[in-house]
């Protein structure tokens, strides 16, 4: 690990880092714009200037851009040197010549990288006395708001949108100080990953339009670590709530899963939490009087805890799969394979693989972040190629110039055009007749990944995945599953639904909208769900539960990684966890999630390592619970005066080490408990640079 000196203090840095990355990783206050840990360096904004010294005796030094300078052993730099320091203030002054003074009405205000950097450089007096240039904004569709006047021309948006995400309909137009980032004409952005513009843009040009519709400042949002519910990948998210509604979802860094980005489904697909047609909460619920046979139908979108409680209530023999019959068959096959070959591929494995073989999944649709990971993979191959030409990993422009065509290492079996096709080196049909052509590449690859899944409902494709795996023992398997907790549900060994024909007197249907064909077999239904559905409408009794955003539970993603999501908020009219409803129906004694999990782990030892590792309700830092609200959270005493003039006591959370309060712990914490990036002087997402990048979650073996 090389040591560099910054203002005469030694710092250990990661080999191959640039000076800027090294400095901000150590929490040093060095401002920057165009660099981003996932985009690399561009040298465009000139904001990260530092003084570079030849040796200890050199006091003059030479000004360099820290993002474009390698942090090599023994090299010496100064952030505080007057030349570099005043140059950085000059840069901000230039950027601010055209930036509107609209922070108070700007969506980015309070979590704006530009605000932070401006304060950091000390620029506070306007000397530019001429008119600002103005732009016309574009309608970029329902998700992204466009306000070009705020642009400081750092080029991050196009470097992300085009170079990383492969989008083609956003570009830089014109030149000089009139560079315009937008589309050729108004219209919704094409990319499935457009939402990341909101976090990539260092100021308020690209903001979240869905958030804007019911806006709150960052410091007024209550947040908790959560897991995306929209596909089986288990990306880490940070939802934000205020006044009982979920306002937005932001990315939560996970090194092995989503990294710095989310797909649009994950970022914008949470509005159902605020829907009006919620199933009514019934309270209190007495114990169920069991008469005759009772079956339970589990759910791949409900938590492990809820599925376990249902299984406990109806008994293992009467616990059925909430997947369709076909899905159940495919998933059983996948589980069988994974019990033999538990080495599944994470998204990071996909990003690092030297060849990717996809069997019948249109990833952009079925697991979008897998598609993005493949794009990132190809760039990594280009980085490797450029590395042999002496170009460091962070020198993005040079890498793209040296490797004008991304190497193609993707093999795809699919019968329709997919968005990944342009990156595919060899495409075959799903009859797999030409699969032989893949074998040499598969065998030659050092760390290939084989991707298959359930979306086409094809068992031969899944069987082929294991055939390929047998030919290449070094390969890792990756299955795209139907829902967020499909893996977890299968671990509870449910029976296939067709077996229930005419068996059930009473069926408890957990968080599931069953097909009418299944519903028609059931005559006495107790449905537990958050939103109304055909199932709840056909139920004898419909019991309302809370959504993922207001409950705490655990899920297992497609790689078998168990992760916990925490309740972000409690509504004034509390909506219970499904497992609490089932507890009451079954007259069980669990008072909190820990008590349930203790029993759960006994019955299913497979979950033991996870339940040991997960931060249980007793976990404290410095004797404190972790605050879900920021220290600046406003309106605590008045936000519910429309209901009661008395200030209400903070709600208690019996299921997590988190508090529904601004009081509690705010500092460094384990990554699976952190949901808001902040440190002094860094109010935007850029604060993630100095945070722990440790992994979380526990991989389970079926």
């Amino acid at each position, binding site marked *: 690990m090389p040591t560099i000196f910054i203002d005469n203090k030694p710092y250990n840095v990661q080999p191959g880092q640039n000076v800027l990355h090294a400095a901000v990783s150590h929490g040093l206050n060095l401002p920057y714009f165009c660099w981003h840990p996932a985009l690399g360096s*561009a040298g465009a*904004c000139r904001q990260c200037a530092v003084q570079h010294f030849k040796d200890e005796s050199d006091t003059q030094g030479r000004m360099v851009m820290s993002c474009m300078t390698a942090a090599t052993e023994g090299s010496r730099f100064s952030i505080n040197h007057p030349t570099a320091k005043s140059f950085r203030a000059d840069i901000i002054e230039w950027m601010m010549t055209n930036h509107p003074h609209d922070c108070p009405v700007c969506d980015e205000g309070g979590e704006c990288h530009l605000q932070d950097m401006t304060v950091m450089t000390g620029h506070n007096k306007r000397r530019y006395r001429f008119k600002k240039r103005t732009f016309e904004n574009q309608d970029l569709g329902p998700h992204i708001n466009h306000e070009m006047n705020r642009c400081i*021309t750092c080029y991050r948006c196009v470097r992300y949108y085009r170079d990383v995400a492969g989008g083609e309909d956003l570009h830089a137009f014109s*030149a*000089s*100080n*009139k560079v315009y980032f937008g589309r050729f004409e108004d219209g919704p952005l094409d990319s499935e990953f457009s939402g990341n513009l909101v976090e990539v843009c260092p100021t308020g040009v690209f903001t979240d339009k869905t958030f804007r519709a019911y806006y709150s400042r960052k410091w007024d949002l209550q947040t908790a670590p959560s897991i995306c519910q929209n596909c089986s990948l288990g990306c880490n998210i940070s939802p934000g709530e205020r006044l009982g509604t979920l306002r937005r979802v932001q990315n939560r860094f996970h090194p092995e899963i989503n990294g710095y980005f989310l797909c649009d489904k994950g970022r914008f697909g949470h509005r159902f939490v605020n829907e009006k047609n919620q199933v009514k909460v019934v309270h209190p619920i007495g114990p169920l009087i069991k008469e005759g046979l009772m079956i339970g139908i589990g759910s791949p979108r409900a938590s492990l805890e809820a599925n376990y409680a249902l299984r406990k209530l109806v008994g293992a023999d009467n616990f059925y799969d909430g997947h369709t019959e076909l899905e159940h068959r495919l998933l059983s096959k996948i589980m069988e394979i994974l019990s033999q070959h538990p080495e599944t591929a994470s998204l990071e494995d996909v990003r690092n693989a030297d060849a990717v073989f996809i069997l019948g999944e249109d990833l952009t649709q079925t697991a979008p972040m897998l598609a993005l990971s493949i794009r990132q993979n190809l760039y990594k191959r280009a980085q490797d190629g450029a590395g042999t*030409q002496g170009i460091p990993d962070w020198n993005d*422009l040079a890498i793209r110039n040296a490797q*004008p065509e991304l190497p193609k290492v993707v093999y795809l079996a699919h019968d329709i055009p997919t968005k990944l096709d342009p990156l595919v080196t060899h495409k075959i049909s799903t009859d797999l007749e030409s699969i032989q052509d893949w074998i040499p590449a598969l065998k030659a690859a050092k760390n290939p990944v084989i991707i298959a899944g359930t979306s086409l409902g094809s068992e031969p494709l899944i069987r082929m995945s294991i055939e390929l795996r047998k030919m290449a023992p070094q390969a890792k398997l990756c299955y795209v599953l139907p829902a967020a907790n499909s893996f977890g549900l299968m671990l509870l060994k449910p029976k296939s639904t067709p077996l229930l024909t005419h068996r059930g007197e009473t069926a408890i249907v957990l968080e599931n909208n069953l097909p009418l064909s299944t519903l028609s077999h059931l005559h006495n239904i107790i449905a537990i769900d958050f939103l109304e559905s055909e199932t709840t409408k056909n139920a004898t009794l419909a019991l309302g539960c809370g959504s993922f955003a207001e409950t705490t539970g655990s899920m297992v993603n497609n790689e078998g990684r168990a992760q916990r999501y925490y309740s972000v908020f409690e509504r004034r009219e509390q909506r219970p966890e499904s497992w609490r409803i089932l507890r009451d129906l079954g007259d069980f004694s669990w008072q909190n999630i820990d008590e349930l999990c203790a029993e759960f782990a006994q019955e299913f030892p497979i979950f033991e390592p996870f339940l040991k590792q997960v931060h249980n309700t007793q976990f404290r830092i410095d004797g404190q619970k972790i605050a879900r609200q920021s220290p600046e959270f406003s309106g605590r005493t008045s936000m519910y005066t429309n209901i009661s003039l008395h200030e209400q006591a903070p709600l208690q959370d019996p299921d997590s080490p988190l508090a529904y309060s601004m009081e509690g712990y705010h500092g460094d914490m384990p990554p699976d408990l952190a949901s808001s990036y902040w440190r002094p002087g860094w109010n935007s997402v850029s604060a993630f640079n100095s945070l722990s990048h440790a992994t979380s979650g526990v991989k389970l073996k079926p």
Partner: protein
Amino acid sequence: MNKPLTGHIRTDGEAIWIDDYLKLGGYQSLSVISKMLPQDVTKLINDSGLMGRGGAGVSTGFKMAAVPMGEKAATPKYLICNADEMEPGTFKDRWLLEGNPHQLIEGMLVSAYAIEASVAYIFVRGEYKLAIKRLEQAVKEAYSKGFLGQSLDMHVHPSAGRYICGEETALMNALEGKRATPRSKPPFPPAIGVWGKPTLINNVETLCNLPHILNHGIDWYKALSKGVNAGTKIYGVSGHVKKPGAWELPMGTTARELLEVHAGGMKDGYEFKALLPGGASTDFWLEDKLDTPMDFASTAKIGTRMGTGTMIVLDDKTCPIGMLLSLEKFFKQESCGWCTPCRDGLSWVAEILSAFERGDGREADIAQLERHARLLGPGSTFCALAPGAASPLATGLKYFKDEFLRHIQEKSCPYANHLHR
């Protein structure tokens, strides 16, 4: 023959086409190089002392030698002629392109042989319609005579029209169909150039020298000069002089000789005030520098640059601030918008100069301009465009301080007939 590059160019405006060119001894240098190893051609060019004529004055042989050779070198290698002549006041390459296109093609064949390039591009300024037409015709003729198409393919690529495309790495991006923004260096084009391959980029005038060096040898070539650097140079003069134009003269001809002999002195009623020696991106010279030999080494010695060697003369009837405004507006407009100092700094400079010209200049503005002249200098920007723009600004502020103050005091431009409002 003391005007090897332009001596044959016809005075009726027509180009020298292939038959005439061959009669004049054209393409003879190809038989010279056919008896040489590529490395020996490079060494000969290096020994000749030929310096790049695009403005920077880097040794051509040195650049050629930087291209990787041998079996391990990546292929195809590219040779690019930078014919994107957009420097204000500069019109020397146009003369060569329109008058003798085969001379350039021959020069490129020599260079391509030396670096073993198999594909060549002439990246030519889009507005040079006639040059483009003639280059295309000449390339066609060279193909039909078999000079091209054997070991070298050549394409004429008209620029879509930005000043920054004259910056060699922005040129490569433009050629690849990308935004014309400069690339980060290192890697340098000889190692990783266009489409990621080794690439050599030379100016038109530079390449036109090569056949003559090969044909006549380096002693002859060096003897052409009366200055420190070798060869001839196409100098030009524009402004309120009696006979503005361009002339091929011995390298090291003084600015005074250019101005007083070749350009015939100032127009009647106009007095000399200052000049920009080589396009817009060079320092102003006052009377005291007129006896400096115009070559790269002599101008560097007195702390300034010759640039393209095509001077713009400022007289006493033209507002120097108006001239600065015109220049800085050009640089501002042509900034690619990649790096902050150039993009936003030049805009600020242009705004201030406009304010002076409309009588709204303030004393604090002068300090602001001085700050910009310093900040836009070398080391703080991504490429050389802004430092080029800072050269006339810094020296203009130094030499014309009184004029700035007069604009403030009189609350208007004191030049009744100033050209640049």
